[in-house]
């Protein structure tokens, strides 16, 4: 089992590294762009999954952290003479702070429904704020022409940025994986499984949930930063409520109980989006219907089903 994992892992790593070089031969920049988009959404979805799949909390307003990360970085670069490295660090920190504020109220209130509605409300508030505060954010004109350092500029080619994004995403994944496998991650899982029991082994449920929320906000903010450098612009739409929905769907599609589940979901969704929007402007209809079908017939998601089958097979072998 372990050998298989190592081989698959290495194969994927090689594929990811070789991909742009192959694409350059075929000279298709679009696919490079698409894969970077997948990476961004995958990072967003994986960090969101810390809260959903591992923490058991369904936040409907995670677009807030993604968007805050993006806007903070863009604003710092466009409106101040802030060095790039500082903007890149400050943005997820601000996202984490917003996560702390939103999370504090959201975890305090008891009940799945309250949590869902409150997170949605907060995220909508930020969206409206960004729209109205024209002096700061230029409202729905968005911020264009974000200065990107030349070595990762996407002006001529996406290849350089591809590798940059790949490295950042890989590092973030590593950190998130360590967190998930740490004592904190295990205790967080107990919260998801049985919050009452968790309380009775001495866990302050609210504290743990809040910490998970803040960490998740931080990495979602990084995803937002990656987006800004890819598009060199940002618009209020990045905070739209529907982004929160998309990232939930990614978790559902790919499987929430598996670390790489949301990544699979992100890949599926980005590719689907690219495909569907070339035929119709009603992506929402497609998304909503898919979500309904999953909820009704397929709640464990693609990766979840595979994982379950593996688990069943393993248990059967043990019993035999």
């Amino acid at each position, binding site marked *: 089992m372990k050998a298989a994992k190592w081989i698959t892992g290495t194969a994927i790593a090689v594929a990811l590294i070789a991909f742009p070089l192959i694409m350059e031969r075929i000279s298709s920049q679009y696919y490079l762009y698409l894969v970077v988009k997948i990476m961004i959404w995958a990072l967003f979805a994986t960090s969101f999954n810390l809260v959903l799949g591992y923490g058991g909390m369904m936040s*409907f307003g995670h677009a807030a952290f993604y968007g805050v990360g993006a806007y903070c970085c863009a604003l710092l670069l466009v409106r101040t003479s802030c060095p790039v490295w500082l903007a890149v660090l400050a943005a997820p920190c601000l996202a984490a702070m917003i996560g702390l504020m939103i999370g504090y109220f959201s975890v305090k209130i008891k009940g799945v429904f*309250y949590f869902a509605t409150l997170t949605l409300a*907060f995220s909508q*508030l930020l969206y409206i704020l960004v729209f*109205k505060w024209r002096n700061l954010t230029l409202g729905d004109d968005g911020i264009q022409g974000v200065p990107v350092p030349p070595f990762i500029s996407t002006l001529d080619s996406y290849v350089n940025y591809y590798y940059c994004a790949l490295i950042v995403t890989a590092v973030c994944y590593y950190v998130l994986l360590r967190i998930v496998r740490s004592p904190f991650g295990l205790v967080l899982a107990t919260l998801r499984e049985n919050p009452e029991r968790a309380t009775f082994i001495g866990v302050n449920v609210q504290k743990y949930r809040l910490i998970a929320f803040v960490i998740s906000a931080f990495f979602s903010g990084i995803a937002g930063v990656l987006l800004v450098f890819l598009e060199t612009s940002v618009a209020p739409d990045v905070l739209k409520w529907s982004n929160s*929905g998309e990232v939930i769907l990614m978790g559902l599609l790919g499987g929430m109980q598996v670390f790489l589940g949301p990544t699979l979901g992100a890949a599926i969704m980005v590719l689907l989006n690219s495909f569907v929007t070339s035929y119709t402007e009603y992506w929402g209809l497609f*998304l*909503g219907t898919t979500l*309904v079908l999953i909820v009704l017939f397929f709640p464990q998601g693609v990766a979840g089903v595979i994982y379950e089958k593996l688990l069943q097979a393993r248990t059967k072998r043990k019993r035999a």
Partner: protein
Amino acid sequence: MELDWSILFAQFISGLCRAMVLFLMASGLTLVFGVMRVINFAHGSFYMLGAYLAYSLTHVFAATPGSFWIALLVAPVAVGLLGGAVEYVLLRRIYSKEHLLQILLTYALIFIFGDLIKMLWGVELRIVNLPPILAGFVSLAGQDFPIYYLFIIGTGMTVALGLWLLLKMTTLGKLIRAAAEHRSMVEMLGYNVSGLFTIVFMVATWLGGLAGVVIAPTVRLSLSMDMEIIIECFLVVIIGGLGNIWGALLAALITGELYALGILVLEKYAMAFLFGLAAVVIILRPSGLLGRGVS
């Protein structure tokens, strides 16, 4: 800041107006939660549909006098019927499932309805005209108010009274309240609780559609209406207590007034006051001002 009473009064009436619309929305949302333990995230979509239907009806019947009244009558009913269909076809399947899945289903409906409405009505902003009878102004305490405001306030209060009568006096109302407390008991007594749930959902969406029709002449209809109303609606329900209709009324009144008076202080960001209130409520009384209708 000198106290200009007439401005305060004007804002008070405007706040009352807003409160009534919020109440129409929040009562539906909280009713569904109280009885069926489901939060209908797509409640704003029904509201938006009501508004757009009002637009179409007033245009189709533009030649007929009283087109608005036709819309007022027909649109909410149409929305209610659609709500019934949604409950019957979709919601029923998920009552027994995890809360998370229930939330996701209604959330998915926002996407679906949003695009369907976009398909049918397009992206241009739409206008609904005031009915001629209500188009004028009336003078109260030295200020001129659109008569339509009073209409909205009147409608809200009538509905509040109607809901009270329904829930307190009629058998249906008693059944609804009983089912909210103890579903299995009501089932064992031989009542068709599933049918009851459908009726409740229809009433709730009817209320949402009504809110949409009522507000239509005062705003420009856009495809973002569903999410615009839903924040305040959620806040009202959180402040008032999920499942508690009177909490919804109280919270709607407070929220409406807070917003209206808040505009005097923070012109563009009056919404902040609402979040501030919600924050205070969450810390001090997490079940809401009047407690939850259900635990």
